[in-house]
């Protein structure tokens, strides 16, 4: 009995050890790939930070309205980009390491995930550009609306910003293959709704503003900004 138990125990131990030995090269290869990924991530992180510093990315993004002024405890864009690159490289290294295992299911999963990485990167870039661009659009619309004398300028700016954000996320989702045809159709409905709402708003509520704006653009009529509208060139204020 004892001999039988000992034999079964030794056989199972041998099987486990054989299995472990079979996986050992794969594990070593994974470890090696992870080490390479960590090294590459660190090098790339330093390179990205240096390039961002040299190109004055933080200042430029702030100037274009893509990023706000630096605040206490808040990540600056160049650091964010560097971190994104680091984690992307680490993730790719990890997935590449998984393919080193001989297990068919793990390998297949890793391969599929690796195929997905470029789409993921593009989607992330689209979202980042969209988020950054939305701030510039918001500021531009806000200032333009204030100078046109529109009282809901901040609302308009916010609306324009969210429009860009929604558009960016929709394109990113489509890139990832999430939602299929639902995303473009939803986007079409949302955009159509916004355009209809704007058309109704202009037609019903803001026709005077539009008329003033058109008059300003076509100088046949006097500039109504700060002069009376029913008089000619005589007595008109010239700013310069």
């Amino acid at each position, binding site marked *: 009995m004892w001999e039988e138990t000992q034999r079964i125990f030794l056989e199972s131990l041998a099987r486990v050890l054989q299995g472990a030995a079979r996986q050992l090269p794969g594990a070593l290869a994974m470890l090696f790939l992870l080490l390479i990924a960590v090294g590459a991530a660190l090098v790339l992180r330093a390179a990205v930070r240096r390039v961002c510093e040299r190109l004055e990315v933080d200042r430029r993004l702030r100037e274009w309205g893509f990023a706000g002024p630096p605040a206490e405890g808040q990540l600056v864009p160049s650091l964010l980009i560097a971190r994104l690159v680091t984690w992307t490289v680490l993730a790719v290294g990890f997935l590449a390491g998984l393919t080193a295992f001989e297990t068919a299911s793990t390998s297949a999963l890793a391969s599929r995930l690796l195929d997905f990485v470029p789409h993921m990167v593009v989607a992330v870039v689209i979202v980042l550009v969209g988020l950054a661009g939305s701030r510039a659009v918001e500021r531009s619309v806000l200032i333009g609306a204030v100078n046109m004398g529109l009282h809901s300028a901040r609302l308009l700016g916010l609306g324009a910003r969210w429009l860009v954000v929604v558009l960016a996320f929709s394109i990113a989702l489509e890139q990832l293959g999430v939602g299929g045809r639902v995303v473009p159709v939803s986007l079409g409905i949302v955009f159509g709704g916004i355009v209809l709402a704007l058309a109704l708003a202009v037609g019903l509520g803001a026709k005077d503003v539009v008329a003033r704006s058109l008059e300003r653009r076509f100088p046949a009529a006097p500039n109504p900004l700060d002069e009376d509208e029913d008089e000619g060139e005589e007595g008109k204020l010239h700013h*310069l």
Partner: protein
Amino acid sequence: MPLEATAIAPGVAGEIVVALDGPSAVDDRAAELELQLNRRFPKHRATLLVTRRRAGEVALATPGVEPSPPLASELSAQVTTGGGIPGQSSALGALLREGVRRRAAAVALVAAAPHDASADWLGLLLAPVLEDGFEYVCPTYLRHRSDAPLNTGVIYPLTRALYGQRLRQPLGGEVALSLPLATLLLDDPDWRRDPLHAGSDAWLVAKALAGRRRICQAWLGAWPGAGRADEGVTETLTRALGLVFREMERHASRWQRVEGSLPVPSFGSGGWLGGEAPRVNLERLLDKFRLGARELAPVWSLVLPPATLLALRQASAARTEAFRFQDDAWARIVYDFAVAYYAKTMERRQLLASFTPLYLGWIASAVQETQGLDEVAFEARLEALCAAFERQKRYLISRWRWPDGFNP
């Protein structure tokens, strides 16, 4: 002490080259001006040319004649400038090329619009160069004191505080130059390095002021009118302030060493034009300012320090008749925007456009404050504003040197 004119070969009977710049139909006017010049300066041969714009390039041509396309090699052989054709897209550039090529004693750029017939405006513009040895004559016009508020409230006080010379209308549009200055300007590397700004009014006046040239101003009678198509207030602000701020950036090392200001020699009869004041709708101006103070606070907070933002909030809450912009606060606001433009705190066009409500608020304040004043009192009021700009120049210099010192 005002700068004294020193003789740089006055009386040499050289040619006068005058370029007539206007949208169209200037040929008849050119003949009339040529006659006028020959009568006024009989010792000098006057050549009147008209500007022709084609495919983004400006050329000078004899009235009634289409210009033949110039050869770049021919031009670069005639002038000393190396590389490219200077001022290819600027009327001033074309005039400088022509003046230097002809070795003209004086060159002038004048608007095609009819000028004040009661003033010897062409003589006043050219005589300081031809007879008194000045190198740069800045035109100044009689206008109603409420007109041109951008010049009165920003351009004049700012230019005066920066360069220490009291040029009343620095962006006059017209100009007369001596041959030495024309040659120097034509050789300027900015034509290649910064073709977008080289040749503009602000570029020219800043070059003359920062280069400590012999400058003067000539009162040419009533303002002949805007040379360009009517623009909105935001477009005017963006264009004019953008040019002035760009020149501030270029000549920063020069203006930081200037303190106070001196009058410049003047020719002709100065003053203000009487008659009906330009129409200004105070309520509408204040509405725009209040709207800006409410909606643009997050944008302004990137440019203006908290104390100024607080003052603006308080001003926007004031009743119309009590609404005032303090001179020192206004000067600091203008300087803060200049620093933000230089430091590229935000996109430059957006920055300048966001200045519009502040400027409209200042107009409302200035109109209310000066509408009951006589000419002498108005002049004193303007002098106080300019003094505030000069007083606050230390603030500008300190912010310019450490733009991040104020952390919004």
